[in-house]
């Protein structure tokens, strides 16, 4: 906006008006974020660097003790427990995100090829389950996978699991729960990408001697990549920090980083350690986001893929 040819006082009045306007529109959101995100984060960071008191509450003096404990150094020397938990979190995130992509991609494509009147209904069917509370849905899976249920009996019959063990609790149950829970977050952005797919590009690829498979890879996949990456971010980050599903379906065997952190604030009672774990998750998330941006840029031919 240019104020050329306007008297200085008129210009400053306009600027005041504009900044007041800015204040009124941005302030509510900013205050919300400051109170409920920035301040708690700062507090958390402070707690992470304090000493663990006798009742699990943070005390002075400042120390790096909780980070040492997080890295596995305790009274009895180094133990790999926390390290395994981190690896398990990463692995669960990777596997479940990968599976979500494999399941969601064909679904999103199929919906985009349906008649106009069916598409909203099919999308609704994908989303509807997530209107039920996550805990309730997870209990549903517990009932489906517990020992003696048809699914568990089938797995037993096929020799996939030991007798009377059931499919739950297990790492498998956690993966299944994560895939099920995050499916809509992948289907929706992928569907948006498929819906605006430029068919002419696919036809051009076929016209230029690309077999159907190569036409998909060279003309369809690149067009859906922004949606795919958006979906990966929407799935992978919450999955990495997931607490409810590993808690309920993992049965103590499938503990992820989110559970480790949560335990420090409840049963385990070690606030500084929990805070240090939360910071670790935050850093891991940022590294993941940065990697996604790089991948998006490279595969998108230098184009910025907005995440």
């Amino acid at each position, binding site marked *: 906006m240019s104020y050329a040819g306007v008297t200085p006082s008129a210009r400053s009045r306009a600027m005041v008006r504009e900044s007041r306007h800015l204040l009124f529109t941005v302030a509510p959101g900013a205050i919300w974020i400051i109170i409920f995100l920035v301040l708690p984060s700062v507090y958390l960071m402070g707690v992470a660097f304090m000493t663990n008191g006798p009742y699990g509450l943070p005390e002075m003096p400042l120390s790096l003790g909780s980070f040492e404990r997080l890295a596995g150094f305790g009274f009895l020397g180094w133990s790999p427990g926390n390290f395994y938990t981190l690896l398990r979190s990463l692995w669960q995130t990777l596997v479940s995100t990968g599976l979500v992509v494999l399941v969601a991609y064909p679904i999103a494509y199929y919906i985009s090829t349906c008649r106009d009147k069916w598409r909203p209904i099919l999308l609704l069917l994908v989303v509807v389950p997530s209107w039920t509370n996550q805990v309730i849905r997870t209990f549903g899976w517990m009932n489906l996978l517990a020992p003696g249920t048809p699914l568990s009996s089938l797995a037993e019959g096929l020799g996939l699991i030991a007798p009377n063990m059931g499919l739950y609790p297990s790492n498998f149950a956690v993966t299944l729960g994560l895939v099920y829970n995050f499916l809509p977050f992948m289907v929706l952005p992928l569907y948006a990408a498929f819906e605006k797919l430029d068919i002419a*590009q696919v036809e*051009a690829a*076929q*016209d*230029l*001697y690309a077999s159907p498979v190569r036409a998909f890879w060279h003309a369809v996949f690149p067009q859906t*990549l922004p949606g795919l990456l958006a979906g990966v971010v929407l799935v992978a980050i919450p999955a990495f920090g997931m607490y409810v599903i590993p808690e309920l379906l993992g049965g103590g065997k499938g503990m992820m980083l989110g559970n480790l952190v949560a335990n420090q604030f409840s049963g385990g009672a070690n606030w500084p350690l929990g805070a240090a774990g939360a910071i670790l998750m935050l850093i891991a998330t940022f590294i993941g986001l940065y990697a996604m941006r790089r991948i998006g840029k490279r595969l998108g031919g230098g184009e910025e893929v907005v995440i």
Partner: protein
Amino acid sequence: MTDTLTLEVADVPSAEVEEPTREASSIEMQGLHKRFGRDTVALAGVDLVIEAGEFFTLLGPSGCGKTTLLRILAGLEEADDGRLAIGGDDVTEVPPHKRSVNTVFQSYALFPHLSVRENLAFGLKMRGMPPGQREARVAKIAEFIQLGDLVERRVDQLSGGQRQRIALARALVNEPDVLLLDEPLSALDAGLRSQLQVELLRVQKRLGMTFVFVTHDQDEAMVMSDRIAVLNGGVIQQVGPPREVYEHPANAFVARFMGHDNLYSISARNGDRLTTPLGVLSVEAAGEDDLLLIRPETLDLLSGEQPGDNRLLATVTERLYRGSHAEYRLDVGQTTLQATLNNRGRRLPEVGDRVTVSVAPEDLVTLSK
């Protein structure tokens, strides 16, 4: 296929047409039918032979089936019935990626995630040409279309005209037997459009390749084509060289589509003398047809009332001055007539003037409804 892309830089005058470097392919269509859904008939039995090395245009209004026909040639659409042969080989069932046919799409359909170079090399890469050879061919074609310095750019950094050229080059670089062009110039502004029309024509003559061009613009069709097929309702109305289609349209639809408005029903005939709403006119050869076509540019306007044979008395009701010529709307008895006069020094009649319209019998054409 050998590496025979002997394209020269495009500054060679069009008169010095080189010997075509490769054998072009003819196209034979037999009874092609295509229907979309239950009710939409796109093609209702098309029989057509396109000669090797021809610049052939499919002309018609939107929805006439011209694009569907082109897509069937490309293999992107399958005909419900009929046969198609390219270069003598039946390709009716051959999928698009196995046809030696390339298309310039209306939207260009360039790959936005690839550079210009990668776009140009796409077809060669898909056919498994080694990278070294590929790069040489791409460099040659980029030079040929005078965009050699743009190959590293991304597609979204190009102007409309540049994109059009890249789309053309991306198809040409594969040296297809047949090049299909789906309204490739419709997105460009008028100046660029006529420039690219000339370029396209030169490229085709130089390469001697068979071009099948789709357009709804009859002027473009006449400028470019060796032969034109006019389509309507999925049926070919007429096939012929531009002059024939323009001067001797086969029916009223073709006449109207080629821009003719002076069509009059013939109510009675006496030898070569036809009775029409304009009056009685002599024609050179009157068949059993029931419509008379008068092309506006064949008319002469004489000032005042000068009755005679093949002369009509008229009043000027409208004049559109176009610089090089002027278009007239005239009242003749109960009906109207349009005339075009070249602007060459004579007095141009004004609105309201009484004039005498003179027409030569050999310029009058009859046609069927």
